[in-house]
């Protein structure tokens, strides 16, 4: 028996089955609803998983947990840095601070957070839909097929590999 669908390894080696469908390996978005994106909470410290972007402010280190939130670490004693809390902010990628205010993205929104009392930070404002975040609407790869972003489905929180049939979008 002939296989109608072949599993292919790369987008460039894609083939068509007997019904002339293109079946390829690619990426699909994992959505978060716009309501869930508005979640904000200060919670207990967490372990690092996929961190990297950092800001130092007034003896504290703020470290972005990619798309999940922000770790706050007390560096007053450099020999004993201490995690003090985690801010749950879906879709966060970047931070900067000035005058006791933490500015961060939250998907397409901009958050304004008062950090005067680091044990009880206060979300002061959310500027809705100020960022296009075009790069969030496509997978973080240089080449390949992907399922096109559908703004009605929510905001893209991540991408996962999958098998796609007749994808319309590619990089």
């Amino acid at each position, binding site marked *: 028996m002939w296989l109608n669908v072949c599993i292919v390894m790369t987008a460039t080696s894609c083939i068509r089955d007997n019904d002339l469908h293109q079946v390829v390996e690619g990426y699909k978005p994992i959505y978060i609803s716009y309501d869930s994106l508005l979640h904000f909470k200060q919670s207990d410290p967490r372990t*690092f998983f996929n961190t990297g972007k950092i800001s*130092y402010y007034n003896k504290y280190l703020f470290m972005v947990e990619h798309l999940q939130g922000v770790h706050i670490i007390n560096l007053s004693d450099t020999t004993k840095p201490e995690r003090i809390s985690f801010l749950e902010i879906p879709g966060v990628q970047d931070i900067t601070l000035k005058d006791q*205010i933490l500015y961060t993205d939250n998907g397409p929104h901009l958050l304004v957070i008062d950090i005067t009392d680091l044990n009880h930070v206060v979300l002061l404002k959310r500027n809705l839909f100020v*960022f296009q975040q075009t790069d969030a609407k496509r997978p973080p790869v240089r080449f390949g097929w992907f399922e096109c972003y559908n703004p009605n489905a929510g905001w893209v929180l991540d991408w996962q590999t999958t098998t796609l049939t007749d994808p319309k979008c590619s990089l």
Partner: protein
Amino acid sequence: MKKQIIFLMTIVLFLSSCSIDGGDFGDTSYGDSNSINGSTGRFATYKNVMYALDFNKIKIFSIDNPSDPILQNELTINDELETITIYQNHIYVGARRGVYAVDITNPLNPIVSSSIEHWIAKDPVAITGKYIYSTTRDFNRGRLTIYEDRTNGNFIERNTIAIDQPYGIGIKDDFLFVCDDRNGIIIFNITNRENPLEVATYPSITSPRDVIILGDIMICSAKNEFHLLDIKDPVHPKLVSIIQ
């Protein structure tokens, strides 16, 4: 009468010296009230303005009232903007196809003052004087490039050094620190700004991503840990603490 004139002159002198102090305060306040950010971020503040890179735009928010940022302006650059670093009165933007120097003398109305194109890659930058150090990586290639910024024109490429998979970058005086995913933190002597000399590697950190240098202390973030290093002797960094 003479006394009154002298008194008035004294007041005038006093007032004029106050206004000069006010201007200085605006400049010095930069380091005091703003966070010090790593080289891979896309947000930064300068004076009463917040800059945010959003794909092909620099979005410019007024934060005269810090709790109420107001989008005032946008600067479009035909590229994919990835990193922002403020040095003196310029923003240096690392992008997919090039590096751009943006004059922010008028913070709400930035102007691109010089730039250079490079191969397609991501690129955090660090600046000292007129020299710009930029790391780029793509697939299995990576490199450190040194540009000289001739304001109002193009950067001039001065040198290139191969590095496996470079990420963030930082400068302390005559030393340059480069995060390399495969090898740790690579340390260069840049006394000769155009010819960095590799002098040491700090291999103990796995997949370093970015650095912040605070005097003799360097904060190194990695994928799932961070290290604090004493870099009083930059060639022999000493571990102060780790959080994993």
